[in-house]
């Protein structure tokens, strides 16, 4: 992976589109950010000193640079992440991060879309199935905003959300479609409650959870499956695909404890 750098950053914007869901934009105090689609960062709330061990931190997928559609620019000073409040650290983030707060980032990590064994698939850019559970869509958003996404042949995104109001990714998916018109998107909605967060008429959507059996029967063992979402979803989906005899190298996951 590229050289890991530590960044002292200021929180420049916080959006709260849903209860306990936040989108945060950071601005670097000095260095430009540089990352590949699908990579993640570590965020530390406590001050970092080079004389001390790295403080407590958590992993977050990088959503993109500050400006939409400039995913591959090498000279960006703004970065965005999404987080859900799930545990004590994200609760601290919710309580302590305000616009103007300083935190430290360490990045970039991960090779979700650049693993060597994927290179043949990536070079053909075909048969790529992207399975996202809720905010698990984040690493895919960074792919969609990158220039390399236009090289993918007919990728398919399955996005599972709790309700229509939880689908807040309309603008990004619109841009993704413009970047790669061969992208097919299917939204699966668990409940009908809540107003539309975006134009659902634009997408194919169904009522119900993401169903790996259904998805696999549609796309088969020659596809490569990227799975990003809650740990239980990743575990269940991976387990099912392996039971179907899929080569482990064709199951790529973005998961943390």
């Amino acid at each position, binding site marked *: *992976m590229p050289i890991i750098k530590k960044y002292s950053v200021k929180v420049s914007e916080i959006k709260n589109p849903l209860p306990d869901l936040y989108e945060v934009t950071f601005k670097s105090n000095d260095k430009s950010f540089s990352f590949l689609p699908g990579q993640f960062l570590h965020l530390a709330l406590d001050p970092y000193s*080079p*004389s001390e*061990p*790295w403080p407590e931190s*958590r992993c977050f997928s990088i959503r993109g640079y500050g400006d939409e559609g400039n995913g591959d620019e090498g000279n960006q000073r703004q970065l965005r992440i999404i987080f859900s409040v799930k545990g004590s650290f994200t609760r601290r983030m919710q309580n302590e991060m305000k616009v103007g707060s300083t935190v430290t980032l360490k990045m970039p*990590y991960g090779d979700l879309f650049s693993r*060597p064994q994927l290179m043949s698939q990536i070079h053909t850019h075909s048969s790529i199935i992207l399975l996202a559970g809720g905010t698990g869509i984040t690493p895919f958003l960074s792919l969609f905003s990158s220039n390399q996404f236009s090289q993918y042949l007919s990728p398919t995104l399955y996005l599972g959300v709790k309700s229509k109001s939880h689908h807040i990714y309309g603008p990004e998916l619109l841009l993704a479609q413009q970047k790669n018109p061969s992208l097919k998107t299917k939204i699966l909605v668990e409940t009908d409650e809540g107003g539309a967060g975006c134009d659902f008429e634009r997408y194919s959507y169904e009522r119900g959870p993401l169903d790996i059996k259904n998805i696999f029967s549609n796309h088969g063992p020659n596809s490569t499956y990227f799975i990003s979402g809650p740990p239980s979803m990743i575990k269940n989906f991976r387990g099912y695909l392996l039971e179907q005899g899929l080569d482990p190298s064709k199951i790529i996951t973005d998961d943390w*404890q």
Partner: protein
Amino acid sequence: MLDSQVTSWINNYYKKNFKEKNFGYGGGKKFIPGKDPIRYAGRVFDQEELLKLVEASLDFWLTEGRFAEEFSVKIAEYLDVNNVMLTNSGSSANLLAFTALTSKRLGDRRLLAGDEVISVAAGFPATVTPIIQNGQIPVFVDIDLQTYNINIEMLERAISNKTKAIFVAHTLGNPFNLQAVMDLAKKHNLWLIEDNCDAFGSYYNERPTGTFGDISTMSFYPAHHITTGEGGAVVTNNEELAKIVRSFRDWGRDCYCNSGENNTCGKRFSQQFGTLPSGYDHKYVYSEIGYNLKMTDLQAAIGSAQMDKLNEFCRRRVENFHAYQEIFSPYSKYFIQPLATANSSPAWFAYIVTLNKNTAPFTRDQLVKHLNDHLIETRYMFAGNITRQPCFTEREQEIKYRIADHLDNTDYIMNNTFFLGVYPGLSAEMLDYVSKVLKDFITSF
């Protein structure tokens, strides 16, 4: 950041204890011929290295830290590469670069015991020893006089169905014929390791050496273009090789946390490896049989300051090299003077010259003795012919190797070649003195 009082003190200390005692770059001492030695190489620095070193020591972060990041980034930006793995020496870098190719993660392309690796016998041992240490068979190819680099025609003939890799150095800063070697590597699906230890700052086809092969290595020993004292680096744009090198460098572990960090992968206790219990601490999972060959932040701090001087250092090395070309040119009938490889701009490590034994009325050893008696340091061409070294001759039954065709030129340079320093610590007065001593010697015959 150091406070102004400390900075001022260090600046004064540098001026009093180093600047006034050094020659060449950053120095101010007047050279006294016959009294002051002319070294072939050495550290060249100013107060910036001391300032960074003090800053690093006051951090008291004793392993890789912020200066390792800073230094790595500077190297990466200079070479325009993605991965820079700092090591504790160039020899360790060579060991890691080569050993990485034995990893099972490389599947069919991994090197196995008995595979052949093309190299040269006329070089530094650290380009050869990893091959033997890993159980592969070095195949020694002769070199060209004047460029001192691997002979391409002989290289092609040396390739067999057992050949899996080429591991050669850019001799004394002079790039080998990268186009031809890359073509052969591609044609025969061979790994190419560029030993760039003596050539940081050299260019081939207007591109830095160390950026052509699958993987390359660098040395920061004081004789080299920049120094960290002991130190080196492995460089690659191949992400898989980078991961493997890091693993071998860091005890063979699967974890990629830096010192003082935990759970960088976010899955520290939730994976299963080998037949270990599920959830075994990822910090203690080992996927390779590795070493600990990391650099400290103190060394990296020096390296970071040195990187800011690399271009100037290289410029002076080239200038000194050309000065030696002029010094030796009146006697060109006695010497084979060095020649830059076509399409290259070497950042010379040294001025290397070979006696024409058919015309010279003296021997190399006579000349070298004369120079050294006059406090002018010289060196022979590293191991000369490594197969004649005791580490080989005393292990004839143990070390397997093959000589492709012959090593006639290798033996010739072993007997007739030496080099002089071109490092930035030389002054014009020193070069004038070398010229005088050389002239006095030659005209005495």
